[in-house]
């Protein structure tokens, strides 16, 4: 399950999508909206996505994971629209036969999501200003053009 949604993310959805009676280990990651960024108070966030491409890229990440760890049960969901403090922006679930690989694969999925999945964040500060967030230096260089 690879999905861009404007609905609240509960986590049940990604978990249900990966669970299987022969897995044993399920690793989940939730990204939530913090009340501050670098100490500056956040009022709320807005996420925008390019849904068909985002879902295609999520699916490609899961293919990379299948290749690296032989894990074929990965689900990713990212919310768009206005998100309040504490709400879940992204959820990733991985079910695997071995927990070590599950942890690695789930972390990998998040790292890649931040690199190649076309989703953007607009930060609306408590003081009323707003801006489209630029990634930090590391992600500015990745992925390279033409990947």
């Amino acid at each position: 399950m690879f999905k861009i949604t404007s609905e609240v993310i509960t986590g049940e959805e990604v978990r249900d999508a990966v669970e299987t009676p022969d897995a044993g280990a399920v690793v989940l990651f939730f990204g939530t909206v913090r009340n501050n960024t670098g100490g500056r108070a956040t009022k709320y966030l807005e996420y925008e996505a390019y849904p068909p491409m985002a879902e295609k890229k999520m699916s490609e990440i899961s293919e990379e994971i299948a290749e690296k760890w032989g894990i074929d049960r990965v689900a990713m969901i990212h919310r768009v629209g206005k998100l309040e403090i504490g709400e879940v922006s992204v959820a990733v679930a991985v079910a695997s036969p071995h927990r070590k690989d599950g942890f690695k694969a789930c972390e990998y999925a998040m790292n890649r999501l931040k690199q190649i999945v076309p989703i953007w964040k607009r930060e609306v500060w408590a003081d009323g200003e707003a801006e489209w967030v630029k990634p930090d230096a590391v992600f500015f260089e990745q992925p390279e053009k033409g990947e």
Partner: protein
Amino acid sequence: MKVTVKYFAVCHEMLDRSEEVMELPEGATVRTILKRLEEEWPEIAEFYEVMQMSVNWEYATEDTELTEDDEVALIPPVTGGTDV
């Protein structure tokens, strides 16, 4: 030929539209679109360095050739997921 061009996030804001249909000459590439946008709004060229382009949901280069009905997008640096 006609292609659809999509603008997201900061591009959407800069150009004040989220998509448009462009009529392009045969043999046009992604660069043809970038040049045309630059004519309309020179400042956008500054962002080309950090921006990516996609054609039909796949990352592309400036040299990628276009065909009828392609869906092209300008992809500002992505910031999805979390900051943590």
